[in-house]
């Protein structure tokens, strides 16, 4: 459901940018990133709100020679 056209009329705008140092990624994604030695703060998340999905780590898996489909 793509209805995230955030309507948030009465939200007090805050000074800060979203300062969370921990990229939005599920534990399974974080584990795979550790296995692959990937720094998640440098990965672009394709999920809703930039959430990093397992698929986003596919480019970091051992290169499969024939199909170069999924380069980020």
């Amino acid at each position, binding site marked *: 459901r793509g209805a995230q056209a955030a309507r948030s009329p009465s939200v007090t705008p*805050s000074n800060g940018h979203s300062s*969370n140092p921990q990229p939005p990624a599920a534990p399974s994604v*974080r584990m795979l990133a550790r*296995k692959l030695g990937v720094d998640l703060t440098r990965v672009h998340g394709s999920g809703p709100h930039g*959430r990093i999905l397992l698929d986003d780590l596919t480019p970091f898996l051992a290169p499969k020679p024939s199909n170069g489909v999924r380069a980020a």
Partner: protein
Amino acid sequence: MPDVRETPLLVIGGGPGGYPAALHAADHGLKVTLVDEGAKLGGVCLNRGCIPSKALLHTAKIIREAHEMAAYGVTFGDPQFDLAKLRDFVQTKVVSKLTGGIGQLTKGRGVDVVKGRAVFTGPNTVEVSGDQPQTIRFQNCIIATGSLPAMPKPWAIGDDRVMDSTGALLLPDVPKKLLVIGGGYIGLEIGSVYAALGSKVTVVEALDRILFMADKDLVDPLERRLKTEFEAIYTNTKVMGLEATKDGIAVKLEGAGVPASLTFDRVLVSVGRRPNSAGLGLDKAGVHVSERGFIPIDKQRRTNVPHIFAIGDVGEEPGLAHKATAEARVAVEAILGEPAEWNPRAIPAVIFTDPEIAWAGVTQQEADKGNIPYEALTFPWAASGRAVSIARTEGRTKMLVDPETKRILGVGIVGAGAGEMIAEGVLAIEMGAVARDVLESIHPHPTLSETVMESAELAYGAATHVGKPRKVAK
């Protein structure tokens, strides 16, 4: 002359840190030796902590609920207590059943269990004393020796009417008047049990409120209720001395508007716990210890000595059973050479009083202190159909979200069953969920879990059952 045993992995301590570490390692094919000096495996948690306290709290809850049913037109006679039977239920049907189960699990997984006290004699050896004296030489070691109740010297007057949590959970009797020193969760939980059994309970807390680590708005509903169940809660109050007399323990107090002296039939000292690291021979192994007795560890739960790890209460705070168990997995995976890392975004905390209080992730007071920007979205349970139908409307569910992205930073709940409900909050935080993820996840009606969904709704303006958005932006 003691035996010498060789083991790839030695685990010292069989509590919720140690025994899962041993099981987990065994499941991955490691040969493990587990040493514990207790009569039964399970550590503090199973033998004299989480488990007996919760069995008693369950009893207390039903006693209160039965009483409150009068408002619904259902009246019971006053409950009769058979303390011996209650003790037996807790110790035999609950504690021994579970500790026995752990014995079976370790056996089933082929873990060698050694009964005795282990003391390091070098970086790769411990000496075990007790029934099975021996030397154990290990390749890797996980220290999970836990913690002990703090008993400040001046209060250790050698009278068994002055108890720590271990003593109080054995239910020696139901004192007419009980003093609880320390308004932390252990004191309040055990105090609630005795209050339900008929004791007049007084709580003394040195700080200006009970449960200081929890957000005040979450503590308020509990405090209001405890004030009706307890004789008194004295905050900003110091205990200046205990004296054993024929009539009871005479206690000197110091605090504004607080009686200078009171006498109690029993006193529970619950002012914290200290890491169990003394006398372990850590210096012989070369393992550092902090001034307060904690063993410093890294993200893999490794001490300064690379093949020695520490988990549970003896390592870092918070001292919680589930934290110890989760660390066990990290330490074992590190030993197995996997890229394990201790990096939870939410360690839930639960106070099993009635109402319960539970939180996970960032608390509001932490966010305030750390200048973390947030919006606090609070859904009052008075607007929950479920809460109304069980007559428990004092609860509230609070969600802290990032003001920009609406990412969920923390969840706090006070109310009946909060301890089960917080699991959803933990998952949301760990998954990196935004409020919309929770609000669009359909929550069954009528349940209290709907309050989590409706607090998430507030991030986008209004919730179905709250007229005016209650939102605090920071």
